[in-house]
Structures are given as C-alpha cells and as structure tokens.
C-alpha cells in the first residue's frame, strides 16, 4: 500500500458478512489446539472444519510431553481448566526439567520455571550471586522442590512465601492429551470430517481443494496444516525446509510407576539423550539418537531395538529443522508441520503456542492474505530462530573446551546458519565476558530461563558487572542467606508430588 492511499479510509469496513472458511488438516495436538482456539476466538468470523485422519501423528512425541507455564493460559483460551486436565488425562505438574549428566560434561541442574528475579541492589540478581559464588539452584524454589519430589501450587497474593516465585507447567502423555483435546472438539460446533487426504490441488501456490479418501472434495479460504512432520499440505506447495540434523525417537512407557516427580529428567548429550517424565500412575521415557546419513544404520538399529520392546508406544525418525516459510498462499503450517526442534527442552510446545497466537492475531480478513502472510512469516522465522538459540545454548560446550578451533568444528556440525550463529555468539560471548544478558525482541525463553541455563551449563563470566564492587557485601550476604534458608526450610514441609496430586484429584472429585 502506498502511503498516499492511507487516507482513503474514513472508517473501518463492516465485518465481512461472508465467513472465512477454514479447514484444518491433521490428527495431532496442534490440530486440536488450533481448532479449539480458533473456534473460541473467532466463532462468528469463521466456519471451521477439521479433517481428521484415523491415526494420531506419531510426530506428536516431538513435544517431549512437556509444556511451560504458558500452557495454563493456552488451556484457558480453549476453555479448558486445570481441574479438567487433571481429571480427564494423566497429566502431572512440572516445575521444569532436571538435566542430569547432561552433555558429557556431567552438568546437573533443574531448568526450573521462575518468575522474574528481583534484586534490591541496583544490579541484576545473577550478578550478585556470581559475585558471592552462590549456586543459583539454591535460590530456585521450583528447582529445590523438584529435586525433593515435592509440589504445591504457588500461592497467589502471598509475596512473602518463597513458593510464590515458582511457576509450573505440565507433563503430559501425547496420546492421552490428544484424546482429551479431541473430546473437547466434539463438544464444540466444529465440523469433523473423519477421512484422510488423497491429494491437494494447487494453483499458483494456492490450495484450491483437498480430495479425501472418502471421495469428497473440500474447498476453503484458508488451510491449516497440522499433519505433523509429514507436512502433507505444505509439501504440495514446494516450500523448502532447512534441515539441521536428523533424529530417531522412541517413546517407552513404564506402567504403574507411581514415583511422581514434578519435573522431567533429561540426560545424555546432543547426539543421544533421553527424557523421563512422570505422569499420574506411570512414567514414560523418550529416547533420542541423532544421526548424520553415514550413521543412520546404527541409529536405526537402536531405534529398532526400542520398537520391538513391548512397552514401546511409538518410534519415529524426524528431520530437525524448519520450513523457510510457514504461510504460503492460503496455507499455514502450525507447529511440527512448520518447525521441529529437539524436545530436550520444551521449545516445541513454546513454538506451538506462539504459532497459535500469531495465527489468531493474523487470521485473514479476506482472500487477499499477502500482508498477513508476510508478517506471519517474519514473526515465525524470528520465533523459531530465537527458540533454537536456547536449544543450541543447551548443547554448546565451547566454554568448557580449551581449543576454540576444535570446539567450533564440533558445534557447527549441527548446521547453524551464520545469522543464528551470530545471535547465539553475541548472547554467549556477552555472558561469558561479563554476565551481560543480551535479549532480542519477544524471545520464547525469557531472561530467567537463560540465566538458569547459563548457571546450569557452568558458564561463568570472566568478570562481573562493574557495579558489583559498589554494594555492601555484608548486607548482601545476610539477605542471600535468609533467602536460601527460607527455601531450604520450606521445601521439606511441602507435600510429596504424588500425595499432593492425589489429594488435588480427591478434592476435585468431591467438588464435582
């Protein structure tokens, strides 16, 4: 639009009387969350159909069964409450991820969720901790609770309670969670078409219709690809996907495991890791092995072993990487159809939520979607890049290695483009130099996540903020001791996670 045209409008157009016809394709967590959030936010603006293939996309195991605290709000946007989630699924509470023996360097820490750190010394809290050589973990109530298998809801309006600084997300079983979401869809006025895709008809980068295996042909204004890593619709549009690495994943279950931990435990290193998550009455282990083409056979063998195991739920191979564009013509790829990051962090779920928010903010007004597409792709690329920075930082051990040359080679093996590398290097270099936290606009992981990560990965700045020498250290010591002791005294008094969850469920049962 030329800026001269901007004054042509004197008032906003009346809402389009013709509803936007949206078709979601996929049997996946992303499909269901897309359908429910769009339905809730835009029921009067759209007609919504969900084409539901018979089987759930196994690529849903790529969420790693973990979600960050934001999942709570995402559920609210679908009119789903926490009590419903707990009563109707085997989901559990999570204070974060416990990395154990991580990265071959034996890093061990809880990547806990936390509200912003507060500091009364005129400088960042982490600088104070570094100055006093304190372990951040002792100041994270979520981390301490997770280590002791304790859980309680963080109290609201009790700022004096150490627990009020904690945040929590959920651990979930991808199949159970999807079934739950599907049941909610069935309660809404969303047209369900139980069929599978035979062919997508494309003209000028626009999908004109989908031919299904029941013989029907579906047309729409906007198609949303939620088919998982297969990206069935996007693949018909010729979008390039940049693949960083390849991975084999197997998900195994351990039924009747009742030792509930309010976190998932991730161990291993970038090429082979596993995540154990604890649900109500069971646990699951996600095993992952990355491979380059030459090593594919060996990784596949490992995968095959897992596949044959009686308690294996699913096994898949996936490309870690991202489509260059997530919105092409009249088709938007959501979540795993667009970008796949390794689920050794909860980056995949964070990206899913960001995809949904971005789509809702830019849902088309008419069939001319050029502006929406451009803006969506701009934000999508930044979000994926920024989320990937966090995953890269989780595997970057250059600070541990003496010879920069060899580290660089090892690190770049995961195919990092120069732009992303520069952003990561800036973050890491500034932190290692003087503990400075460099942020970019609207990163999926916040400053606290990054600080906890740096401490966990034992990244210690060479020097500190110059202001560190300007504070009264005896006061600081006293305050730090008080804070640490308050957490240490409170955690043993908290209930075990399993007991708390059971009582929570009993309470909900009585209420209903």
């Amino acid at each position, binding site marked *: *639009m030329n*800026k*001269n*045209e*901007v*004054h042509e*409008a*004197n*008032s*906003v*157009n*009346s*809402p389009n009387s013709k509803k*936007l016809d949206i078709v979601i394709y996929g049997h996946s967590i992303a499909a269901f969350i897309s359908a429910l959030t769009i339905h*809730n*936010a*835009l*029921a*009067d*603006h*759209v007609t919504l159909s969900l084409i539901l293939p018979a089987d759930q996309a196994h690529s849903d195991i790529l969420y790693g069964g973990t979600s960050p605290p934001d999942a709570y709000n995402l559920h609210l*946007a679908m009119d789903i409450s926490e009590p419903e989630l707990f009563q109707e699924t085997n989901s559990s509470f999570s204070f974060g991820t416990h990395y154990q023996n991580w990265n071959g360097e034996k890093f061990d820490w809880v990547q806990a969720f936390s509200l912003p750190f507060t500091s009364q010394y*005129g400088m960042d809290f982490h600088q104070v901790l570094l100055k006093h050589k304190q372990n951040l973990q002792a100041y994270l109530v979520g981390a301490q609770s997770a280590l002791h298998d304790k859980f309680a809801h963080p109290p609201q309006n009790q700022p004096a309670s150490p627990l009020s600084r904690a945040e929590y997300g959920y651990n979930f079983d991808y199949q159970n969670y999807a079934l739950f979401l599907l049941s909610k869809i069935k309660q809404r006025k969303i047209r369900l078409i139980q069929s599978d895709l035979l062919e997508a008809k494309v003209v000028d980068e626009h999908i004109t219709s989908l031919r299904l295996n029941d013989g029907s042909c579906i047309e729409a204004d906007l198609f949303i690809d939620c088919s998982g890593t297969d990206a069935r619709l996007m693949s018909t549009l010729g979008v390039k996907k940049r693949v960083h690495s390849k991975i084999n994943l197997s998900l195994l279950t351990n039924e009747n495991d009742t030792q509930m931990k309010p976190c998932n435990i991730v161990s291993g290193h970038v090429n082979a890791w596993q995540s154990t998550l604890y649900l109500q009455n069971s646990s699951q282990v996600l095993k992952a092995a990355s491979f380059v083409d030459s090593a594919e056979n060996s990784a596949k063998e490992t995968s095959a072993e897992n596949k044959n195991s009686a308690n294996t739920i699913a096994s898949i191979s996936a490309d870690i990487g991202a489509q260059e564009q997530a919105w092409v013509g009249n088709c938007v790829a959501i979540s795993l159809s667009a970008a796949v990051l390794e689920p050794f962090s909860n980056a995949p779920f964070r990206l899913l939520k960001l995809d949904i928010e971005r789509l*809702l*903010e*830019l*849902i088309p*007004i008419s069939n001319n979607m050029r*502006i*929406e597409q*451009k*803006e969506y792709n701009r934000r999508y690329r930044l979000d994926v890049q920024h989320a990937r920075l966090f995953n890269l930082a989780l595997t970057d051990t250059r600070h541990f290695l003496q010879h920069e040359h060899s580290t660089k080679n090892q690190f770049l093996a995961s195919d990092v483009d120069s732009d992303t590398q520069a952003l990561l290097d*800036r973050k890491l*270099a*500034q932190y290692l*130099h*003087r503990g*400075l936290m*460099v*942020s*970019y*606009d*609207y990163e999926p992981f916040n400053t606290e996540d990054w600080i906890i990560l740096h401490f966990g990965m034992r990244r210690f700045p060479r*020097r500190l*903020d*110059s*202001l560190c*020498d*300007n*504070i009264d250290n005896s006061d600081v010591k006293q305050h730090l001791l008080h804070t640490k002791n308050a957490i240490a005294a409170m955690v043993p008094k908290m209930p075990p996670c399993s007991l708390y969850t059971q009582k929570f469920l009993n309470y909900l049962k009585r209420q209903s």
Partner: protein
Amino acid sequence: MHLCIVGGGSAGWMTAAALAKKFSRQKLQITLVESEEIGTVGVGEATLPHIRFFNQTLGIDERDFMRKTKATFKLGIEFVDWGTKGQSYIHPFGDFGEKINSVDFYQYWLLAQKNNDMGKLEDYAFGIAAAKSNKFTIPELGAPDLKNSFGYAYQFDSSLYAKYLREFSCKLGVNTIEGKVVNTSLNETNGNISALTLENGQRISADLFVDCSGFRGLLIEQSLQSGYQDWSNWLPCDRAIAVPCERTQQLTPFTRSTAKEAGWLWRIPLQHRTGNGHVYCSQFISDDAAQNTLLEQLDGKVLAEPRKLRFKTGRRNHFWKKNVIAIGLSAGFLEPLESTSIHLIQEGITKLIELFPAFDDQQTTSNTLTIDELDITEYNAQMGLEYERIRDFLLLHYVANDRSDSPMWAYFKNMTLPDSLQEKLDSWMHRAYIQRYEIGAFLPPSWVAVLLGQNLIPHNVDPRVQAFGTNDIRSKANAMREDIKLGLHQAEGHQAFLNRYLS
C-alpha cells in the same frame, strides 16, 4: 581509573552524576571539563517517564528536584495540526483501555466507531483525560485499575537540571575544570585519546573519555573520526530557534507540538516561564520567516533573545570508539518531537554503566587501559537500534497525515519510506495491526496514539473483536470510562497539585 567528561550541559552532568553515584565505592576519579564561553545547547526541556527511574536511581528527591528545576508534570504531548489542520490529539504515556479477551481495546473501539457507539478513544486514557482538564495526580503504584495505569514525566528547565546535577555530582567528588579544549593527544600504540589540552595549557590525562561536547563531537568526531550516518533525507528539518516567554496561561500538564508549513513549534510550560521553539527545514523556509512564525505564536512577553541552532539528523557510525563514548548531541541528533533528547542521553548512560570497563588498578593507567571490543560492539549495537527505532517513530508523524499544503509536506508525501516503517503502515491500514517490538522507547500504545490521532483509520480490524457481544463490550467500556471519570474527579488541578506538592 580516571574518567574525563567533556561538556557541561545536560548530557555531561547527567553522565557525571550517574557514574559518580553508581561507582561511589570504587576508585573512579571523574573530571568534567566545561566552558562558559562555549555554553550549552540546553536540549529537551520535556522528558519521557523513564527520567523518573533515572532520578530515583540517583536517590534524588522528586520534590527537591522539581523545585530546583522549575519542573511541571507531563502526561503526554498534544499534537496540533499534525493529522490535518485544525485538529489535535494527545499522545499520552499509557495505553488506551484494557485488553478484552487478549485483544487490544482500540480494536473494539474502532469497530464501534461505525455506530459512534463508544465515544472518543481518548476517553479511555486517564493521561489524556487529565491533561485536557489540566489536572494531575500521581498514579498509585501497582494498582490495576485504569485510572492508575498511566505514566508521567517532567517538563523542566534543562539548564537548571544540569546545574542541579552539577551540585549533586560535585558533592560526590566530581572534579570540575573550566576551560576550552584546544587539542587532543592520541596514544600512538592503541589509538586511544590519552590527554586533552585546554586553552590555558592545562593537560588532562584520563583512561576513558565521555564526549558530551554537543553537535561538534569534539572527541568522537574531530579526534577519532567516527563518521556520521546522515538521516536528513528522512527527517530534513535542520534548524531550530528557541525562545522563552512569560507564562500567561494555565499550567498545562503536557507539552504542545504544532505542525507548521516547514516544521513544527514546541511549547513547554514550566513553573516560571514557557519554553518555545521552532524546528524547521531551511530548504523550505528562511531563518527570518521561521523566527517570525515562532514569535507570532508566543503566549506572552519574550524573556530572552532567540537562540538559533543548526543540526543534521542522524547518528555517529560509532557511539563508542576506542576509549571515547559519545553521549547526547555528540552521539547523534533526532529532533525533539517526542522529547527523546534527554531519553537518549539516559539510555547512553545506562548502557555505559552496564558495559563499563573493568576497574583493575593494575591495568588502568592511561597507556595500558584495555577496553574490551565486546563492550564497544554491544554498546554500539544497542544504541544503534535505539536511535533507528526512534527515527521511524518520528518519521511516522510526518508521513501519517493528510497534509500536502506546503512544499515540506509535499516532500514527505512523495518520500520513499524505510522498509521497516512502510511495513508497519501497511499492516496498520490493512487490519489495525501494530508490528510490535519489545526493545525501544515507543511501544504499541504510542504507535496507536499517533496513527489514530493523525486519522489513519484502518480498513479493517482484528476479526476477534466480533466474538464478544456488543452489549458486553459496551458495558466493559462504560466501566472503564467511569473508572477514569472517578480518577479525574479525585485529581487536582495541575497548578494546585504542584503548589501543594512542592510547598
């Protein structure tokens, strides 16, 4: 470590005060060189709310500061004749209304405008309502209601502010030297500035220099040849005339900016006088005509000779080069249309403190001080982004309007905008969408204020607004207006508030 600040204007004394306070327990010796002969520009008498945090960090008492700088409160800026002649709006410090179902309130308001259903958008911003009624109150910290959801800044005499901070700094041990710098010596090994020589022959050595010498950039440009990015193709105003006058009207808690044929006029009410100025484009108006335009608009009697300034909009290629950091006008210039001059000084200081070189007594002699290139790169990256985003926001005022009644406005009409701004305008006009960012002085509510204030009514709104029933929206909107009305009822007149607050 010895740090030398060159320049005794707002930038120089803000820097001296902040560094002296922040590093009071460290071995930082600060010297400030100022010259009465050169004088100061006295930029920006109006500020942004961020200045409060700056003062708070220094431990400055608000009342004491306001008394001594003849300050008034500022709730926003009134823009007159910017969208179209005869029309005005206020850009407040705060948002319009409250989000409903995660959707910004202005979206609902835009849709309701079709039926003229929800009054004016300004009815939903306490800052505007209070400014229009010449009222003021201090918002209750942490209160969630709309009547407390606003920010405030100050309008003050910047030369008095510099004087105030001079006294503050000297108490903290800042050493002041009166003199004119005539020469700089460079260290041949590392290219750093090692010393300054004053007109009287005095030589001042230091490890680190802060260039607050104003437009000429005595150290950053004349000695270190940083280079300058010229942005005058986008913001072509290149001159200003400033003149104070007697205050004859009510004390308004807002600054006024009035668009003219070849620039704009500012009006900043202080306790003891009104500050006025005309920023203009010399390509489209003569200096004499510009001065006449200014003098014709004054509220009262002229109190001093008009002062003339020349500038080139843009920024240094390097804000920090070698051992010199440029802060204030020596770093760059953006016209004070949104009161960003003092804000940019503050940002420069804040980032310098964050990235301040190490205090290592073993190393910090004038010949061996090593400044990490990482600090310089980071400082320059952060400041560059700050300047660029403000530039786009300022340019928005000139291009988001319906004016073509003079050669200057025609120039803007035919301008090719920076892609970053063009994209923002496109998405706004298409669906009232603000392309947001997190790092920068002006966040989405500011963009909405200017875009709607200057009559850029988008073609469509966010379709999510239709999900909420009209009656529900109306009822929520009424509650918001009532809350603001209540707040307004409780607020005092600006003058009365000041009298009481400062007594």
